[in-house]
């Protein structure tokens, strides 16, 4: 991969990779470590990267693997903390009319996302936040583009059901 210094890659992508990992680890400081680990691994192999390779997708792949390894090591992580119930309670008291403000709605969605299995969670964030193509998501997750898409859709269904009975701020509803 050319002679462009690695610092340029860090400069261009660290913020986004860090955000991705932060989102998937629910904003914990672990994201800092995982982002560093991602770039240290990338550093070791970036010279072998073929000319014209998609550096961004490649970094997301490494980040996803680093994170999966991390969670594998933390298998015993209690799931109880991640349940929708516990999290929705954190989201603050329900309004009398049951409607959530924009930021409450966001917190609600994030709390449901946190309960998703890791693959769905990664696929969802890669697609909906970072707008990666399904090919690249499949690459990052070690599955086909179709499976990646299925993960995203499944995540959306779960979010939709997780938010059942909660009013969300209105958005345009007419099909285009």
């Amino acid at each position, binding site marked *: 991969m050319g002679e462009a210094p*690695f*610092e340029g890659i*860090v400069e261009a992508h*660290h*913020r986004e990779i*860090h*955000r*991705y*990992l*932060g*989102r998937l*680890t*629910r*904003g*914990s*400081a*672990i*994201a*800092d*470590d995982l*982002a*560093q680990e991602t*770039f*240290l691994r990338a*550093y*070791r192999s970036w*010279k*072998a990267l073929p000319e014209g390779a998609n550096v961004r997708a490649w970094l997301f792949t490494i980040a996803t693997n680093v994170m999966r390894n991390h969670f594998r090591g933390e298998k015993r992580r209690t799931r109880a903390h991640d349940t929708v119930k516990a999290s929705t309670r954190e989201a603050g008291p329900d309004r009398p009319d049951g409607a959530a403000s*924009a930021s409450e*709605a*966001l917190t*609600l*969605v*994030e709390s449901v996302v946190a309960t998703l299995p890791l693959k769905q969670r990664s696929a969802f*964030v890669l697609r*909906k*936040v970072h707008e990666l193509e399904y090919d690249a998501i499949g690459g990052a997750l070690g599955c086909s583009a179709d499976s990646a898409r299925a993960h995203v*859709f499944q995540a*959306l*269904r779960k*979010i*939709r059901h997780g*938010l059942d009975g909660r009013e*969300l*701020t*209105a*958005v*345009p*509803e007419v*099909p*285009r």
Partner: protein
Amino acid sequence: MTGKHPICRDLEPDLVAAAIGEAGAAAAERVGEHVRRCPPCRDEFTRYRQIEGVVEGLKSHPAGGDEARSRRTLACRLADLERRRVAYRIFPSPLGNLLIARSADGVTLVEYLGHARTIAASRLARAKNVDPVEDGGELERLYRELMEYLEGRRKRLDWPLDFRLARGEFDRLVLSTAAHIPYGAVTSYAGVARELGRPSAARAVAQALRWNPLPIVVPCHRVVGSSGALVGYAGSKLGLKEQLLSVEGVSTRRAQGDPEIAREAMYHLMRGETEYCLPTCGSIARRSLAELTLFGTREHAEALGLDPCTTCRPDLHPDL
């Protein structure tokens, strides 16, 4: 959900896709058509649109952690990695597989791997504070120069050297002294020990050279025992030592099976002198190798600016 009409159930994937703007034109139209007539699906569609709207907000929503601090730490760790990074490559060569490695500071290792083809067989794999990374490009030139050297087409390898794989400070000192033994010259372990100011350390010098991480480049093949016996090279590769010496015009012979330099066929230089002599000059033939440097050819002696001895006149004896 269970009570869903089969049509609605079949349409559901398209409905989700249409709601998040990922459906093809035909599917989007089908969904639009359907939700106009089916209130539950319309609600469902609206719901997904709303979620899509909320999810959009995730893009600008902070995700936690301290990005700036993380990046600063990363910069330090990368710098550390850069210092430890050693690029290596294994070349199939006439000497068997040959590993060449270099750091940002200089060439770090030249290693005879024999038949082994992976780094697992190399001392790089066991070295501390070294991070080996396989690399292609830049090592190719070094390999080419080394081959030219072995074929006698090149007399100097002007490489920056990095002695980080030396076993310690003494070894480093020995290596940097041995690195200056000139092309075509032969000295002894005791000679190097004297040069270092440690005349009794000949054995330690031999051990240090035995672990020379840069054979050929640091020409430990130019160092022999005080008797003139080749003694050892890279484990049990005495043949290779003979070969390297012969490339430089130093002939060897077999005495009771063990190779030794043919001292009587070499030009002699006394330590501290600037004139080189015939082996028959005065009592020089009886001097210890620790006090001498020997040359296979006059050309190599004169390349160092040495003059022929005015007493024995080696310049008048073209052949030894």
